């Protein structure tokens, strides 16, 4: 699924002008260590965190795009970090539950490749 389609689906806001890309896997976490343990290359990360730390952690495991949920005000430094690391970042006013639900229904797989 194209990132542009995902942004449209969750009524998201692009936080910097990143290029479109294709995404197949998604995962949600508010715990950085869990992210390190679970993340797959190019995964869409759905999170409630908006610290630069979260972006750095995402970079370590090669996250493909970040969605910050619940309409949180993402600090400039976080956006800048994402931009420096060339990771697309999107914010949405949807809750984590709804965001996950919509992406799941749209066909994104979870980290174990399960989707029925």
């Amino acid at each position, binding site marked *: 699924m194209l990132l542009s389609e995902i942004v449209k689906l969750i009524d998201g806001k692009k936080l910097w002008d990143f290029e479109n890309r294709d995404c197949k896997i998604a995962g949600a976490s*508010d*715990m*950085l*260590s*869990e992210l*390190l*343990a679970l993340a797959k290359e190019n995964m869409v990360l759905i*999170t409630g*965190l908006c*610290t*630069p*730390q*979260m972006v*750095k*952690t995402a*970079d*370590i*495991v*090669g996250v493909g795009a970040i969605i910050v949920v619940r309409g949180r005000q993402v600090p400039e*430094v976080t956006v800048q970090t994402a931009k420096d690391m060339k990771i697309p970042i999107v914010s949405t006013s949807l809750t984590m539950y709804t965001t996950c639900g919509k992406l799941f229904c749209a066909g994104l797989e979870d980290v174990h490749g399960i989707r029925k």
Partner: protein
Amino acid sequence: MIEMEKVDDLIKRVQFYFREVAVEEFMTSPVFTIRQEQATVRAKEAMRLRRFSGIPVVNEKEQLVGIISIEDIIHALENGDLNAPISQNMTRNVVTLSKKELIVDVAKKFELHGFGRFPVIDEKKRVIGIVTQHDLITLLLSKLSILYVHDARRESFVHVENYRSIPTGINLKEEISEFQFSIDYMDVSLAGTGASELKKFLLSKGFSPEFVKRVAIATYEAETNVVIHSGSTGIINVYFKYGVLIVRVEDYGKGIEDVDMAMREGYSTAPDYIREMGFGAGMGLANIKRCADKMMIISEPGKGVVVEMNFWGHENESIRS
């Protein structure tokens, strides 16, 4: 003290997991041998000076002909034979190993014969190594991938700038660190910068992305531990030697109270404000253990923490891209 039978029992229980390991991987080599025509008193002196409890005996072609143990020396003393050649006092029926034998067979031989050591010989009967129970135990500990030095011996490691890399035995003092990063604990938002930098560095050196990812995750966890828990500055040093990448992260802070608890998944001592930032899941050390091929923690309350992680290529995973 653990009795020897308990050690046997332990070895029996865990050997299943390491049954593929061959003798050549854990034997002590090269090995000290003694010629059969020498006087028995020479063997006695060698044992006293080198604290051996037995020495393989060889002929002029360096072929194994027997073994001389403390027991044999005692017999020689009793009979007043200390000046006789070793060949007269040694034990001749030696049970040997070949370097390809597996750990299960070795454990069986220890059990069956009750000997303290087995010489390892090649096809020409030359002694190429020796296996003692100590070698077996060291192997098992290192294979369990974490070795926590928990007694007075760690005193000499903690607060020493450089020390011998325990898992690899390489003296790090003589090695120039390929990558060094100072960890600033004052700013939590900087946590992970070292791991990020290391990732870039390793990729630029031509290491493969999968390999680098493992290293980066483990380093990230060790680095954030310093920032969150130590209350002190820290340093990351990286060495590459004999195909093994060694990452050593150390701090000079408050140390770990209970390493066993800290290793447990889900256990964390992180304060609430740290948890709100997404840290403190209690998965840090577990994550390191998962990513690193070997991991060692040395710590003691008040004396800082040294985490050493070793990485090497796995099957289906090349180190270089």
